[in-house]
């Protein structure tokens, strides 16, 4: 088995995550799909690190985790605030700003 299979897997997971962002309506699930995309990216980084034989890829993956953690905090805070006001976490309900 070649290492590129990991890359294909990462691309597939990334795509599924992207599709999830388009299809799911619950803001939290949408956000989880974004996390899935980031995870897919990390897999690609780790695999490339292995291919190139340097640790830069792993470092980046590590940073991505830190950044994602911070992003999750902020994102969930925003979603909770909206939920308090609207009693709904559906992204389709937040539709006042348009045209």
């Amino acid at each position: 088995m070649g290492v590129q299979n990991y890359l294909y897997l990462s691309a597939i997971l990334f795509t599924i995550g992207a599709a999830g962002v388009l299809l799911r309506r619950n803001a939290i699930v949408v956000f989880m799909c974004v996390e899935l995309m980031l995870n897919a990216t990390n897999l690609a980084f780790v695999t490339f690190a292995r291919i190139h034989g340097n640790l830069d890829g792993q470092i980046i993956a590590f940073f991505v985790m830190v950044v994602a953690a911070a992003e999750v905090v902020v994102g969930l805070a925003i979603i909770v605030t909206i939920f308090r006001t609207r009693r709904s976490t559906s992204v389709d309900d937040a539709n006042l700003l348009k045209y």
Partner: protein
Amino acid sequence: MTVAAVVSAASVPAASVSAAAADSIPAPHIEYGVLSPLFVVFGAAVLGVLVEAFAPRAARWAVQVGLTVLGLVGAFVAVVLVASSDDWKGARAVVAEGAVTVDGPTLFLQGTILLLAFVAVLLLAERRLDPGPSGAFAAQASTVPGSPGEREATRAGAAQTEVFPLTLFAVGGMLLFPAANDLLVAFVALEVLSLPLYLLCGLARRRRLLSQEAAMKYFLLGAFSSAFFLYGIALLYGYAGSIRLSEIADAATQAQGSDVLLLSGVGLVTVGLLFKAGAAPFHAWTPDVYQGAPTAVTAFMAACTKVAAFGALLRIYYVAFGGLKWEWRPLMWGVAILTMLVGAVISLTQQDVKRMLAYSSIAHAGFVLVGVLAADDAGLRGVLFYLLAYGFATIGAFAVVTMVRDPAGEATHLSQWAGLGRRSPLVAGAFAIFLLSFAGIPLTSGFMSKYAVFSAALDGGASPVVVVAVLASVVAAFFYVRVIVLMFFSEPAADGPTVAVPSILTTVALALGVTVTLVLGVIPQPVLDLAGDAAAFVR
């Protein structure tokens, strides 16, 4: 200051991990002098957080505003010192172990961002237009709008003074973004500038539902675009084995075999950059977020984020992808044309002033891209000048928006602006100047900036794009002039909004906007020279 502590603290665990490895890790060398603007801003932000914790509530607003202004001014002084000092001229290159490049464009962009942020902070700190201790922001963002809890917080004189450290963190990210010499730093900087903005968008005092909706939209789409950006970085890393811009450029020029990976990476990184810059087809968030966010925050975003995003775009494109010019130029042609047309055409039918300005900012992103297309130092100079000129005009325009009010807050529907010139000729006149500048009428900064980017693009061989750009300017100009006519030559409605008298802060911001717009229109040469001197990237 804090940075030194972080570094020394950071090296301790590394040492404890393995005694053998500890001595072999060389102490990292960080050029604090050259990077001082960054550290001043971050330091002020951290101090701001401490102020939140320890200062009494009554004093917080004043302390935070003072600290923020001081931080921005200090950082600007640092930029000027770095740019002028002979000692540091030698150090103008790749610093901080190769993570950051401090060169002409970096310093020019950092200076621009700091100036614009200073003006935007004046708007953020305005408290007379929306009377109350919290200004235009919610007294307490965690309370449900309209709930007893919110009323209680308002009564108690609560104020969300965290706005200021958040702004400073965003500014710090913006300073770093165009200076990043590797894609990881670029990504981290992108997040550092974005996260505070997501938060700031949701803090409006009035129309909080819209504000929160804006925050959520901006956040979800921003995170989505970050993911693309990151996957692009992954592909570029996979191609080049490094994320240093220069090494990517080297790998691209010595390409052997297939460079499909490289091109896909370029494409995905572009998605992330164009999203922040607000270019079509990644512009969809702009109108909604600009409309929903508190106007002062919108002004800050519209001016500073755009500068930072285009700065990073320029650096990554010129330095890392410079050798791929022939591959990415057709794409950028398309994006620029689409962006200009979408921005100009849709702005025609807008009824809301903030939304109209948002579409105008999209159109301007397109005009700036025309300058990027030139892909030479003349184009770079034009873009640098454009960003500065546009930033001041746009902050000024939003400052006017904050002043036109009715009992429900800002009156942003265009029909409410009819006859504004009769009621308040000065404010309407200032707005007219900004609109004329957006339209690119001579004697305003808009004319010179358009001239600079268009002529660079013409010399760079992008004449079809320039033709479209001129057409788009005409369409947009038609709309701007219509707004001017509406303000000056139609009867004001009886129950129309009034122009509230702002405090000195907004007045200064507005005056600065007008002055810079006019001065850059009449004597742009000094700034053009400055941008010209700065316009060369260090690889």
